[in-house]
């Protein structure tokens, strides 16, 4: 590969949009060509500059409130878990749309369209839990970016101790944790962030045999990755794109290998 061929590939390569064969050729070229290597570094630097949080405009609270109050039935009355199931059926019957039931309806749609599998009810439960954590201002019980604060916080609250890694260096900073309830038991939910995208990582012990990370069909735009390792099952869920979520899973799994 020469520079002329390499130049237009540097962008797609940085964006993770290059196919495997071309990646190998380009990487080979970058090793030997200092001009292209510099162009690549400069692009990485630009991407990092553009990704900084300071450039992201979060929605003002007043706007959020205005939209909430303009919606037919305010989403702030998100029912708690027991009422939730009830709300699905009830609202389905009456087809009354509220912020909460809109989510439920989308869920029902997914349920009716998708093929049933043994993991699917759990996957649905996990997506609901993820959405609920974002909706009801109950994302975190312990807010900390320090793994040594988050891990001990779970002591006495769970009958296992989840592995907590801060992945700030990989640009998935840990932002906190909370207790959740899934699959009929208390589980640890670790909360990570990539830019404005929240990642919930649910962890609990199980007798499942070890399995490699598997990407499950996206539900309502949320991506799900499931794996199990050394007696623990892991579910990562986020609106982050599939590729970056997989990066997260690999970074997390790599961290646990070291311990």
């Amino acid at each position, binding site marked *: 590969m020469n520079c002329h061929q390499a130049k237009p590939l540097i962008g797609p390569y940085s964006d993770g949009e290059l196919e495997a064969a071309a990646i190998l050729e380009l990487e080979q070229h970058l090793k030997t060509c200092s001009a292209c290597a510099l162009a690549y570094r400069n692009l990485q630097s630009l991407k990092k500059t*553009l990704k900084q949080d300071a450039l992201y405009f979060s929605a*003002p609270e007043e*706007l959020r409130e205005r939209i909430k109050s*303009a919606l037919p039935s305010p989403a702030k009355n998100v029912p708690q878990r027991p009422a939730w199931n009830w709300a699905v059926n009830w609202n389905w019957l009456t087809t009354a749309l509220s912020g909460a039931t809109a989510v439920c309806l989308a869920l029902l749609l997914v349920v009716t369209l998708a093929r049933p599998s043994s993991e699917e009810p759990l996957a649905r439960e996990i997506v609901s839990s993820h959405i609920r954590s*974002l909706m009801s201002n109950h994302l975190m019980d312990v807010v900390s970016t320090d793994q040594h604060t988050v891990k001990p916080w779970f002591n006495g609250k769970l009958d296992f101790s989840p592995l907590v890694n801060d992945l700030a260096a990989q640009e998935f900073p840990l932002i906190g944790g909370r207790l959740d309830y899934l699959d009929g038991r208390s589980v640890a939910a670790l909360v990570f962030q990539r830019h*404005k995208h929240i990642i919930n990582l649910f962890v609990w012990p199980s007798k499942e045999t070890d399995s490699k990370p598997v990407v499950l069909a996206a539900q309502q735009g949320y991506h799900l990755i499931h794996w199990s390792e050394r007696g623990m099952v892991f579910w990562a869920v986020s609106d982050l794109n599939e590729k970056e979520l997989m990066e997260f899973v690999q970074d997390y799994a790599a961290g646990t290998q070291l311990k």
Partner: protein
Amino acid sequence: MVLPHLDAAYNLARWLAGNDHDAQDVAQEASLRAFRFFENFRGENARAWLLTIVRNTFYTWLRKNRPPEKTVEINDETLDIEDASANAEAVSPQFADAETVRRVIAELPVEFREIVILREMEGFSYKEIADLAEVPIGTVMSRLARARKLLQKRLAAEFNPGDQR
């Protein structure tokens, strides 16, 4: 399904409209429209779907409220000049203050700006951006490449004024 993605909706609207007041109007109208047309939504990616509506709302609003934004003619020649001068190490992100970077992005023509926002801030794939902006993938790639060259050129001028070879 609207509220969890309100930050993304507002961020895009804010970058497109250029100020808070108009961005709030656009984001609010888009959110309510998204809610109303919820029945048309076929479950793939709620955030992309909402942002498509934000984008359409913005362009409708733009036609009504503002004279057409000046589209800067960018030809390959100016970009080639930049290419030749790109021998220097780029400004490292620590030194680029957000205020200046923000201004430089805001100066990009709107059709480049939106692609940069969708790719770098929202992390959408080329395919997702193509669907969202209703342009071919090839156009997404060429706009992104040009936008990046422009940004690099202007950021370099801002932060290394003496380094313009």
